[in-house]
């Protein structure tokens, strides 16, 4: 019998099996870009998918993701778990998530500090929560349940919000830090969301970055926003994911990297999706900033 020599993994192969997302730039994976990514093997740190889009039996989504996963680290990002919901976590959905995670063995799984379902109706939006003791308990219970069920640590993403609640007794950053502390989950620091929420609620975005637990940050998101006006004519930013990352958000990101050190960073674009080359170039901007911040201290 001739000796069988296993073929060398191409390109990014070595990192596809890494335990964590690399401190590099990644891009949200869109079906429009499947073939180009497979054909050109772009030099990127990772790809991220929305979990719910891949909760289908078969077909091109799984066909292409399987091939892409062979060469890149993967982040699975949920948008439908409704972790802040008053309704119990949907165990059927959680089982589908567990199956997806088993299948693709992603380096990271993340979800949102928000609610998106009520009863059996799915609202397909990330809805805001009051920051009070009752909500804190519920969110922590749900995260415990998810982490136990999935047998892994998850990352929780800070929200972009348009209203605040009279019932809130805590600052958003204190609320998030307490969730991180109680559940042991990590933080998906969405720098665009920090910026959007701080402008919308007249807070200092740099202060918010300072206040969040830096050692818990496992991933950063960057995206574009849209600009509108509220009832008083003041700026109201909408987390639209439909445009390039704004200059103010790049500056805030640079500041965050100064404080936190380099962390896996995703360019998110979910609406008006441009050519892959446009997203790749934006990821290149993030990559440059990442490379200029080489030291990370106190990472968990």
């Amino acid at each position, binding site marked *: 019998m001739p000796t069988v020599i296993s073929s060398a993994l191409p390109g990014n192969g070595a990192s596809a099996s890494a335990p964590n997302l690399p401190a590099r730039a990644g891009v949200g994976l869109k079906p429009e870009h499947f073939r180009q990514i497979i054909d050109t093997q772009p030099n990127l740190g990772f790809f991220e998918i929305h979990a719910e889009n891949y909760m289908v039996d078969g077909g091109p989504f799984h066909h292409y993701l399987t091939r892409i996963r062979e060469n890149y680290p993967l982040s699975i990002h949920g948008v439908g778990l409704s972790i802040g919901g008053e309704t119990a976590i949907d165990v059927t959905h959680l089982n589908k998530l567990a199956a997806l995670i088993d299948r693709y063995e992603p380096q990271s799984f993340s979800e949102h500090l928000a609610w998106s379902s009520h009863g059996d109706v*799915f609202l397909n939006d990330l809805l805001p929560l009051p920051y009070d003791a009752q909500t804190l308990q519920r969110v922590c219970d749900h995260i415990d349940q998810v982490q136990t069920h999935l047998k892994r640590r998850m990352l929780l993403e800070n929200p972009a919000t348009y*209203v605040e609640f009279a019932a809130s007794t805590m600052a958003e950053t204190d609320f998030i830090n307490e969730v991180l502390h109680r559940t042991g989950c990590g933080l998906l620091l969405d720098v665009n969301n920090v910026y959007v929420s701080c402008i919308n609620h007249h807070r200092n975005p740099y202060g918010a970055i300072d206040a969040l637990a830096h050692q818990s940050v496992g991933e950063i998101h960057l995206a574009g926003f849209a600009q509108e006006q*509220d009832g008083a004519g003041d700026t109201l930013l909408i987390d639209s994911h439909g445009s390039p990352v704004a200059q103010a958000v790049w500056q805030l990101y640079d500041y965050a990297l100064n404080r936190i050190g380099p962390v896996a960073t995703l360019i998110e674009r979910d609406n008006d999706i441009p050519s892959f080359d446009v997203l790749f170039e934006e990821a290149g901007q993030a990559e440059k900033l990442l490379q200029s911040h080489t030291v990370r201290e106190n990472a968990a």
Partner: protein
Amino acid sequence: MSTQHEFFDALLDPARPIPAGLTTWNGSDPAVRFAVYRNNVIVSLIDALADSYPVAQELVGEEFFRAMARLYVDAEPPRSRVLAFYGTSFPDFIEHFPPAASVPYLSDVARLEMLRVRAYHAAECATLPADAIAQSLADVDQLPTSVIRFHPSVRLLRSQYAAASLWAAHQGIEDIATVDPEVAENVLVMRPHVDVEVIRVSASTADFIARLLDGATLGTAVEQANLADFDLRNTLSLLVQKQLISSITTSRGKQP
């Protein structure tokens, strides 16, 4: 009433007042900001329907489509967090939507679009190569009791209208000027590999495939076929050529 229940009701019904207890830093009317959430929910769900039904949207125009989709979203908000199949009942809604009555084929074109979505995401399944099928079908004694199973993506649409031709015209595959919407069409939708295919078949072929899809034996399906215009050889060769057959078993359970 819980906070989220009140929020939920106000999101889905713009006639309701916004939930109590919402604040803004500048004292501006929170209703303006709450409207962002209302808009996100409704627009994202209408967008999901537009993604699944692009040809239906082209047939009636964006404005009409979105107004119709909005009424559907109000009546049937999603019950699943997986939106790929959201709007499965939208074609039935269209069929019974009086303002769309002047476009009688709209619901069937929409049905075809949802069958394509279903086929696109259907499970993977190995199909039999031509020589294995030939071997199975060579045993004439076994033929009447043979049961043919298809790739999970295989779907059939029986339409009183030219649903497939109308759909194809909107892909630039056919010239719309040559399409008579009133000609009935039978459409086979499949995704044997990566790409979804849509092909027209005769009524008799559709009858035959429909019986097989229902689990009838080959013998029963042939017996019930209208032999005047049914070509068994052509139909089988289509199924073989498109690699749609996943298994052939007999009532005695013999595998090919």
